[in-house]
């Protein structure tokens, strides 16, 4: 017992070291989103390219919706842009943009200068929808399922690695859920066999 007590300080220091070492590899900016598992908030804003057209939550259509928060002022949005173009072209998800705290003319020009990967972009000049979505800056990307439920939020730019490691698992999960929903009869057959 006495011997054990003699080693207690060493054990405590090692435990503390382990905790602090783990802290080194954690990203303090990686805050879990409060909105995951909650429905997409209601909104009523205009389309970036057409100020007379009002967009609401119901205009976001698709089995899997990606809502990408971007702005012309945001450096990393340019970095992730080519990846977004690829993702949009793959047709696996419906990619929508949320032009966040930006200037309408600059935003339109940006889409003209580069390629426009979005089905359309929502124009959120004041950042109100951004606040409802818990957005802190651009770029951020939300994965929303067909029942308008937010399934994941990614803070920071998307690239091939992020897409592979973070997005694909969630997308595959939603896809398999949807397949299970589409063929409930098959499940019943399996159940009846048991």
């Amino acid at each position, binding site marked *: 017992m006495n011997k054990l007590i003699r080693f207690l300080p060493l054990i405590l220091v090692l435990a503390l070291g382990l905790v602090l070492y783990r802290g080194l590899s954690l990203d303090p900016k990686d*805050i879990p989103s*409060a909105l995951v598992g909650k429905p997409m908030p209601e909104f009523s804003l205009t389309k970036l390219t057409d100020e007379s057209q009002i967009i609401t939550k119901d205009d976001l259509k698709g089995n899997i919706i990606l809502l990408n928060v971007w702005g012309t002022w945001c450096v990393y949005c340019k970095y992730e842009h080519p990846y977004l173009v690829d993702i949009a072209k793959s047709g696996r998800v419906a990619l929508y943009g949320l032009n966040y705290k930006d200037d309408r003319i600059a935003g339109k020009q940006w889409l003209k200068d580069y390629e426009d990967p979005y089905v359309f972009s929502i124009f959120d000049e004041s950042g109100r929808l951004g*606040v409802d979505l818990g957005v802190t800056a651009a770029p951020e990307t939300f994965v929303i399922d067909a029942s308008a439920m937010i399934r994941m939020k990614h803070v920071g730019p998307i690239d091939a690695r992020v897409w592979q490691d973070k997005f694909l698992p969630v997308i595959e999960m939603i896809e398999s859920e949807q397949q299970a929903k589409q063929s409930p009869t098959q499940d019943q057959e399996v159940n009846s066999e048991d």
Partner: protein
Amino acid sequence: MKINLMCQTIVSITLVYLMATSTVLARSSDTYEFQNPVTEKRFNELNKELRCPKCQNQNLADSNSPIAKDLRREVYDLLHQGKADIEIMNYMVARYGEFVLYRPRVSSLTYVLWFGPAALILMGVLVVIFIIRRKPIALKDIELSEAQQDKLKALLKDKDL
């Protein structure tokens, strides 16, 4: 006379500079008007209690980041909608998570945070009590036997000689 003039110029230049910079400072932070001093106090208190989600070591009052500005505006609007402080807190937590609170709520996730220090102090006190109250080594054990006592005396005698 020349020196005097120079001094005057320097003083006036400094004054103009100070005035100019002070207006710049006043412009850089957003100002809100309050009809009710209580609302203003609540506004300032809430901005101290809420953490800027982007710049995590600053509260909303301290930070000049765009998101902090937006959230200050939200707090202002919510106050004028007649919302209670707790409702405003809940509104922020619903969007930005528990992280926006500088004083996180007591939950199973934050037990360590809330009670850890007290538990450590308690542990320290227990250790101190344990050490203090450990029985001192009994005097009997260190007393010499008669034979040893005689030997000691003999040795001391030798030394005296």
